[in-house]
């Protein structure tokens, strides 16, 4: 039995999500517009994206040979 995971897709999805959320938080002044906050949110997004790639439940399960 082999499960197909997508850590690379998770990496880039998390990266985009992290940068996007950072820009939105910046515009509302919720966090200061600094490189440090951008890096924290970007890395957080990447970690969550990769974690989701391995944690999401597998679909289309088929029986083995």
């Amino acid at each position, binding site marked *: *039995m*082999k*499960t*197909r*995971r*997508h850590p690379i*897709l*998770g990496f*880039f*999805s*998390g*990266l*985009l*999500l*992290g*940068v*996007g*959320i*950072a*820009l*939105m938080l*910046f*515009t*509302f*002044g919720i966090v*200061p*517009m*600094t*490189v*440090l*906050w951008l890096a*924290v949110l970007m890395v957080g*997004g990447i970690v969550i*994206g990769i974690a*989701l*790639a391995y944690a*999401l*439940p*597998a*679909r*289309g*399960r*088929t*029986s*083995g*040979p």
Partner: protein
Amino acid sequence: MHATGRIAATATVVGMCALLPASAALAADAEGCQGSVQSLMADGSPLDSASAPGEGGTADDPLVIDPEGSIAWEGSTGVAITSGTWSVTLGGVPFRSGDVDNADGDTSGSGSVDLAGAPAPVQWVLTTNAKIPVEGTMSGPEGTCTASGYLAGTGGSPISSPVFLAGAGLAAFGALGVVLMAVGTKAGAAGAAAAGGAGT
């Protein structure tokens, strides 16, 4: 091993939490010099002011500036810095820098900056409610002057700002990727076995 990982993760988070407020505490601070800033609207009327060291220009009370207005500043140093370098960072990113040319040995100065001619990205940010840390440094053989504080735009409509729209677009693409990842995560027999199973 797991305990070590937990301790490392906890230490990282605590370190980050300690670091972030520390940067905010440096707001409107100055060492080796002092100065004041007055922000003006496009019609020349006063908008906000701050002094360093002193009141205003903090994380909780940033200096509000008008993207179509200007900033008038004045400052003085404890000693005459006749040569060296100066630099300004915005949000931790180098913004402007240059060489100090003060052969006359002046210890005070003043000037103004017209924001209407600022690059478009700066204008976009200033139409939001973003709080931008700013730090200026001037150093030479006679001494060093460092001042820091917070700026903010006049706000208005952050949702219509290109910065917000770009963020929303990137977040939407990221969310779409997560959905595709969820849909594409499949469990089953290995390819050859699956093909063989389908053939029987």
